[in-house]
Every structure is written in C-alpha cells, then in structure tokens.
C-alpha cells in the first residue's frame, strides 16, 4: 500500500513508520506543523510542534530512507482544536483536545488530503490495535490511546494503519534503538501541546479574560469563595479552590458543577460527585451494536472502566453505571468497550 506516515518527531510515530516500511509498504512521511509560530527548541515533555520536533521527524525519515514533507495545518488546528478547546471551557465543559485533533485534523484534514493525493491510508504511532478493522486497546494498557481514537468512524479506521498496538512502549523504544532512530530515548510528550508552559489556567485567562464569579456550597447554599473565571474549574477538582469559609463538617470539598452563564462554581463533598447515570450527545460507533447494551464504559483518558447498561436517550446514550463514578465532566468522552474492543464514543453532556 502507499501510506502516509504522520511523524510528530517522537519515538512512537518514527517506529510506526519504520514498521510500515518493514511491512513492505511504500511510505511517505509528513510532519504536521500545528503551531502558528513554532518555538525553536523543545522544552521537556511538552508539545510536539517545535522546529526541533520537525527536524527529529525529518531525521527519522532520513534513517528510514523515505520521502518527507512538512504540512502546515496550523490554520486547521487553530480553528478546530484550539478554538474548540476555548469554547468548551467557556461553556463550562472539559474538552479533550487530543481527541478533537484526531477527529478533525489527523484523521480528517490529513487523511482526506492523503487519499486525494493517491495514498491508500495513513499510518500513525498511536498505541492501539486494529483487529480485523475493529479498534482495540493496545497490549500496553498504560499507554493505550484507544480512548482518544474511539471518535473515528469505520470509514476512517479502514484507511488507518496502527502498527504499534501489539507492542509495549519499552518494545517500541528498543525497536527504535535497533533501527538507529535518534529519537529512541526522547521523552514521551504529554500535557497539551499548544500550551507551551503547561499553565492551562493561565492560557484560558489570557484568551478568555477574567470573568469573576462566586463559589457556592451545594449543601448550605452559601457563597464560600470567589474566582476570576469559572472556566478554570473542572468537575472533580479539589485543589486550588481557595475557599474562605470552611465546610460545616470540615471535610474537603470538590467542584460539583460549573455554570458559565451565572459564572457559578458549585462545590460540595466527595460523595456528591458520585454519579450513576451519564447522558451523552450523538455517538460515533466504530463497531456498531444494538441498544440496550451491557458493556463497560471509560469516562476519561487513562480512567478506570465501569460496568454499564447503555440505552438510547434523545440523540445520544443514557449510560447506567454499575458502580458510581466520580468527577464526570461534561465535554469528556464516554467510550464503550467490549473487553479490549472499542464499540463507540460520545461526548458527555450531563451526569447525575
């Protein structure tokens, strides 16, 4: 097959491209330039958008002997990932920008362009498996990224090659060393790539402005503090609340809800975070099933799974949890699994 390898400059995508080459595919590498004004050097584990990363990707392509180009997708990234990130926080929800980037940039803008250019599909370094076309968890559960890929449609998955799903991260690094790839020991990237200093609250404040409002205790109804922007709070959050009035029982309080119109952040005891039913928006089925359905659901990246029963509700799902979940934030994805198999994904709109 003629495959386009998306190469971030990290070890995973470099090894994925290498495995595609080894499997006999005709591979071309591209680095996606996502930042408008990329920083020259990478700092620590953040980001994947510096020129150094572009160079690392180019060097990996050199080692593999494949053509390599840089695609400037900064405008798409800004419009569909960064703008969505800000709008979601402004609306009191907690977005997952990596999921959005996969959905809108990597497997839409890039895949469409690749197919139009005559490629048969894209190869990425995500830790997940495609078993007979069905998206499944990586064998390395600690690195599994099926949660942020679950938003892909069967058509998108059909044009996707994920060579790393059968490998652990250690095995990926060992392969990189064996292939002479200089990125073998490059630190993993995490955090949000477009927030270079890791200060999400500061990023939101810079872009959304200060929007002061009250922090209200759910039990007493009393105003127990104030904030400069409700967007900086996420359901389940405990740290950084800076509450002036202690709880009646003296126990810690958590963010229960964020209401953007009145700018009210409601806090309460841990047990008030517990939810038994999660409602979602319209789903994307990667492996369609009939409802109602008994399966497990994952409610955040690297989160635990809950037994559940899924029934239709409006355009989306009503997910009845077998065990209560804590801190379910609207905006996150609810991903259904059958064992390791991904069934589908939908955005959480509410929980109680």
């Amino acid at each position: 097959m003629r495959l386009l390898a998306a190469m971030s400059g990290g070890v995973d995508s470099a090894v994925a491209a290498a495995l595609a080459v080894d499997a006999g595919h005709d591979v071309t590498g591209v680095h996606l330039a996502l930042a408008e004004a990329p920083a020259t050097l990478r700092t620590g584990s953040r980001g994947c958008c510096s020129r150094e990363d572009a160079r690392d990707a180019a060097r990996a392509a050199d080692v593999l002997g494949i053509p390599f180009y840089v695609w400037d997708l900064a405008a798409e990234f800004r419009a569909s990932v960064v703008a969505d990130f800000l709008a979601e926080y402004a609306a009191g929800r907690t977005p997952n920008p990596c999921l959005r980037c996969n959905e809108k940039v990597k497997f839409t803008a890039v895949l469409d362009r690749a197919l139009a250019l005559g490629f048969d599909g894209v190869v990425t370094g995500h830790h997940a498996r495609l078993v007979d076309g069905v998206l499944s968890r990586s064998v390395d559960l600690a690195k599994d990224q099926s949660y942020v890929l679950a938003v892909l449609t069967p058509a998108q998955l059909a044009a996707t090659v994920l060579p790393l799903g059968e490998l652990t991260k250690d095995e990926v690094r060992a392969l990189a060393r064996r292939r002479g790839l200089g990125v073998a020991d490059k630190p993993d990237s995490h955090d949000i790539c477009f927030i270079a200093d890791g200060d999400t609250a500061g990023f939101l404040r810079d872009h959304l402005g200060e929007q002061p409002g009250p922090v209200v205790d759910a039990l007493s109804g009393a105003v127990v503090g104030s904030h400069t922007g409700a967007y900086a709070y996420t359901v389940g959050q405990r740290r950084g609340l800076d509450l002036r009035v202690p709880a009646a029982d003296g126990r810690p309080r958590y963010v229960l809800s964020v209401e953007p119109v009145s700018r009210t952040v409601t806090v309460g005891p841990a047990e008030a975070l517990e939810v038994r039913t999660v409602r979602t928006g319209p789903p994307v089925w990667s492996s369609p099933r009939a409802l109602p359905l008994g399966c497990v659901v994952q409610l955040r990246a690297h989160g635990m799974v809950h037994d559940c029963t899924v029934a239709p509700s409006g355009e989306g799902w009503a997910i009845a949890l077998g065990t209560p979940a804590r801190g379910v934030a609207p905006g996150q994805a609810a991903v259904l699994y059958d064992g390791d198999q991904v069934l589908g994904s939908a955005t959480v709109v509410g929980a109680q």
Partner: protein
Amino acid sequence: MAYLDHAASTPVLPEALAATTEALALTGNASSLHASGRRARRLVEESREAVAAAVGARPSEVVFTAGGTESDNLAVKGLFWARRAADPRRTRVLASAVEHHAVLDAVEWLVAHEGAQVTWVPVDELGRVHPAALRDAIGSGEDVALVSVMWANNEVGTVQPVQDLAEVAHERGIPFHTDAVQAVGALAVDVAESGVDALSLSGHKLGGPPGAGALVLGRDVSCTPLLHGGGQERDVRSGTLDVPALVGLAAATTLATARRKETAERLAELRDALVAGVHRVVPDAVLNGDPVDRLPGNAHFGFPGCEGDSLLMLLDAQGIEVSTGSACTSGVARPSHVLVAMGQDEVRARGSLRFSLGHTSTAADVDELLAALPAVVERARRVGVR
C-alpha cells in the same frame, strides 16, 4: 529523474570540482607568512582576480564571503552602519518588496534592533521595480542609508533595470547594493558598467561549491564589518579564507561567465519550450514574472485550483524535482512575499511552482515534466486548496 531546481543549487562544474579537490589536499593558511601560506594566498589572490575579471570589477573590490546570505547581510547592515555613522540622519533603508530573505530579513533586523526605517519599493504585476517608483521612495534622500534592489528575482525570474536604478540612487548620492546571486552566470553582469556600489554573488548558483561567495564592494564604499577578527578581507570581513572553496568559486565563475551567452541562449530556448509545453498541457496555467526580461532558465507558473505543496510532492514521487519558491528552514510553506508584492492573493500565490533550468538541463528533462504534469495537476486539483 529530472532536476528542475537549478535556482536552488546547480551541479558543480567538473572543472570547479577538480580545482577544489586539488586545493583541499594542500596545507596552508592564506594569512601565514611561510611558503605554504604564500601558496595558499596565491591561490586566493588568483581566485580574486578571476572573479573580478568575470564580473567586470577590480580585484581589490572582491570581498570573499561564505555565500550569498553573508554577502547580502554584510552589504545591507554594513552600508547602513557606515552611512549612519557618517551622518546620523541616514536611518532609512530602501529595498524592493521582492528581495530574497537574506536582504529582507536583514532589513527587518535593522528596523527591529537598530532604529532603522524601511521603505519597501513596490513592484508592478510582473515584479519590476520602476526607476520612477524608486525616485518617489527616495524623496529628498538625505535620510536614506542605502538602496538594495536585486538584479534578478530568484522566484519569478524578473530582471530589474539595475543600471537605471543605480543611477536614480546616485542622483542623491546614495549607495546602491544589488543581490546578483541569480544573475551572475545567467545574465551579462558587469559591475563597472552597471554602476552598482555593492553586488552579492554565490558560488553554488553558478556551478561552484556551496559555502563560498563574494561581495563586490566599490573601493570607496564604506562598509562596517559583521565579522570581527583577523580582518583578512579588506578589514571588512574576518575569518580564515576557505581556499579550496574559493578556488572552486573562481573556476566556476570564470567558466559560467565565459560560456554565459551560449548557455543562456540554449536555456532560454529550452525554457520557452517548457513554457509553451506547460500552456499546452495545462491551458489555464499562468506564467508569472516578466515574459521578456527574465532569467533564461526560469519558468514560474501559477496553477489555479492547486496547492504548490501538492504539486511538488506528486512530482517528487515521480522523480521530478521542482520548487514552490524559496526554501524555508522549517519546511513550512508560506505564501510567497514576491507574488503577494506582485498583487496576487494568498490562494493564488500558494498554487505556484518554479521550474529552473541550468547547465546540465536537457530537452529530456522538459519532456519528462510535460509527460507527468497533466495527471499531477489533475490530482492536485482534487486535493484542492485549503
């Protein structure tokens, strides 16, 4: 395999390769006083004489550099500093809007860090700088440090009326620099006849090794150095001279200028066949730049509905090597400032390709391109413009 990117770098001439290789085997710093040093210095001075003779300059006017970018930076910053030191009112730089980044960014740097002002001299839709536009931009001229207008544009190939423009600058006593990196070896370049005060040239654009170039600097033109040290080059440029590269530069400059007329005629004919062929197979392709006063090896087209990036990648996959404009460090394509200055919108500017021919180009290269182009353009149109 068709290499149609000679404007980026052209193959080293066998004679230049032999001269450089031979000199690489010799020991000696051209500044040393012993026999080995004298041998090296002799090679440097013979190279200087050869380059001077090739471009109509005096040997003492040739300042060797590490290439076109250094020459441009030295001219722009060096002339600015020297002129401002002589008269603090001279803080304005005039440069054409279509300069290479080596001039453009040097000027921007002066604006950002040295309190300079800049007036970008406009070009018409063919990329030409008109002497009247330069005269307007100069005004009374007492605040102007220098004027810089390239001899020929690296992207669209338009040749500027350098002699007329230099005259306009001289009307107000302002020194005139020209980036002739694309011109030397392709056009008749005679420094004395043109009247320019400073001229940049680069080895690897005319069949010499990369990393060697020169700033031809009039003897009475004051220029503040960028690089300080041993003062090897007229105290304007320091650094141990790269003897092997300069020997190669001299060999290439001599040959390229000696063969210029016949090469230019052959390339212009080949280029015209390429242009006619592109129009035939892609009827809506638009030739950019001056159709008459252009570099003999340059053909620059806009392909409506396509992105240059897509076209480049698709041609590359078939072994046909072209460019979307000037290369950029990050590899990220930006709409060409040259095309934007010529009045094109961003979308149109992004759909462009440069085909550039050089001394090894053949009719087979052109045929290969024309055979591949229709399918490539059709596919690129399907990809579309973002």
